[in-house]
């Protein structure tokens, strides 16, 4: 009976595995290969011939695109750093200090605001930050400022919006990995003479690296390609990777150039993330005395 059931389960998981694979092939790898092909194909309208070419990539080899990549990398890195700094203590507190009775309630309260539509969340900041918005109004009423602060359409507003919107993507994986942490390990560490910071450095962080990595990826990848927030809170005055892609695909409709840019940005992303993970591993990974 038992083996039969196990076999059935195995078969089942095989079935769903195939479904997932087909799905991924159809809707991920296929479009990606289209994108890649398009970026290398040049069409000459005068002769009506298409041929293989590096022209789009060579065109993108300009300092201005380098700056855009740097800008997006910086914004995404800052977002990861800030959301991690905020979410880690919150998740730690929630997972290890709050009694089971309150845990779920508090967690639901934290996540609840993010059930709202993403655009709406960003737009609400627009109403808070504009010149006659709530923030300026309160500051004026309190007499802290004499004329409205210019808050909208600044880099600050973009960064602020990113921190705000990406926080739950960091919070969820951190919480789930801290939740699994055995509190007795923390007691054992203290018992052996560790201060809180030593325990954090030697036990808590190394045992929650998976949560930190997942959270960092979940925030970094979309933040790197973000275009809604720069458009709405930055007034579309500074270009980010996401803005450039939107520009080529939707505004000027230069699909091959947009494809080439997308491919490069994907490459930049992969290289950057790999390097960062290597550094992270070097700092918090095993550093054995013995071996």
């Amino acid at each position: 009976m038992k083996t039969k059931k196990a076999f059935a389960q195995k078969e089942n998981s095989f079935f769903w595995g195939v479904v997932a694979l087909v799905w991924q092939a159809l809707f991920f790898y296929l479009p990606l290969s289209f994108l890649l092909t398009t970026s290398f194909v040049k069409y000459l309208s005068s002769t009506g011939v298409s041929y293989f070419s590096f022209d789009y990539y060579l065109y993108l080899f300009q300092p201005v695109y380098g700056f855009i990549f740097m800008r997006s990398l910086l914004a995404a890195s800052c977002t990861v750093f800030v959301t991690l700094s905020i979410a880690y203590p919150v998740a730690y507190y929630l997972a290890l200090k709050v009694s089971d009775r309150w845990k779920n309630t508090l967690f639901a309260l934290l996540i609840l605001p993010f059930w709202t539509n993403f655009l709406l969340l960003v737009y609400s900041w627009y109403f808070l930050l504009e010149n006659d918005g709530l923030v300026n109004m309160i500051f004026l009423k309190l007499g802290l400022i004499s004329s409205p602060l210019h808050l909208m359409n600044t880099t600050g507003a973009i960064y602020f919006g990113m921190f705000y919107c990406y926080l739950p993507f960091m919070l969820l994986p951190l919480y789930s990995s801290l939740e699994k942490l055995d509190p007795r390990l923390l007691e054992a560490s203290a018992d052996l003479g560790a201060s809180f910071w030593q325990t954090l450095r030697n036990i808590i962080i190394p045992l929650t690296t998976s949560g930190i990595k997942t959270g960092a990826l979940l925030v970094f990848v979309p933040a790197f390609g973000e275009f809604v927030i720069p458009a709405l809170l930055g007034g579309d005055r500074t270009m980010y990777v996401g803005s450039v892609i939107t520009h080529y695909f939707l505004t000027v409709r230069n699909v091959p150039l947009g494809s080439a840019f997308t491919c490069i940005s994907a490459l930049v992303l992969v290289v950057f993330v790999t390097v960062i993970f290597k550094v992270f591993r070097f700092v918090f990974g095993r550093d054995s005395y013995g071996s």
Partner: protein
Amino acid sequence: MRSIRLKNIEKSFNGELILENINLTIPEGKFFALLGPSGCGKTTILRLIAGFETPDNGNILLGDTDITHVPINHRRINTVFQNYALFPHMNVFDNVAYSLMLKKLDEELIKSRVFKILKAVRLEHQIYKPINQLSGGQQQRVALARAIINEPEVLLLDEPLAALDVKLREQMLIELMDLQETLRTTFVYITHDQTEALTLADQMAIMNYDGRIEQIGSPREIYEFPISSFVAQFVGKMNIFRGTLHIGSKVSFVEETNLGAFEVAAGARVPWMVEGGQVLMGVRPEKIWISKKAEENFSNHLTGKVESIVYHGPATQYNVRLKNGTRIEVFEQNEEHFPKDKIDYDDHVYLHWQKENAVLLER
């Protein structure tokens, strides 16, 4: 190696009083066992000594120093946890070296100390193995090595053998005793297993369900001279009779259901031993002599019918039903391959014991 003193300790969790007025002195350099049923608060006592909890009232002294409010990481007290709590992301070496690494000692010094201690617990061939590749017994030894490497004043052990199988447990018991002999560190051993406590301890304390300490003494004192029926029945087995005391030229105990009067050798007279006092009398199963014929030369005897026989190997347990319905347990050594007068089910038997072998209990 210093003593531990608990003075008027009180502790409650969520309004529930767990420990009330605990006074306990754990002598220095001794193997001390704290024995009690599950949920009696013995683990709370250990957590108070370790510093994981702070008492609501009272003081904890290490030697002459009050450590009640000293943080965990500043107490020279280390713990072997029930499920070891080894760091899963570190190998054997790093786990054991942890406390030395925190002190930022010289790398070579750490190495030599870790190698020495791992040799002492016979793990010298597992030094760089990850924790999850060790057996239960090996993990136990890592936990032990990790706790003693920093030479604590007191070592706390929270049911450390509970997860091991019987054979391994017996082996570890002996290793623990040897270790305590060599280190001369004060060991505080928490357990609900009376055999472990009796085997290991120089001194032991018995806690009851209410979180009170019933009796403190050497294993022999506790076993032979329990002060209450709780202690008597928690440590080993004890047949208990209820009745009244008669003090004449001899001290005798009259059983309340007319089983008879039994002579008792009451050594030290205590205030509750008064004429007509309601008391209990206890006789250990192995101190009763069972036979099919009545024997002379015994102070006391009873009759009954054998209800069941449990063969243990070295000994046999007879459960005998008395005429008042009480069940008495009797242990007999299996001294011979072919017992001459084999006792069987439903046999009518005589139970005898000497007056010195019964104890009087107040409650």
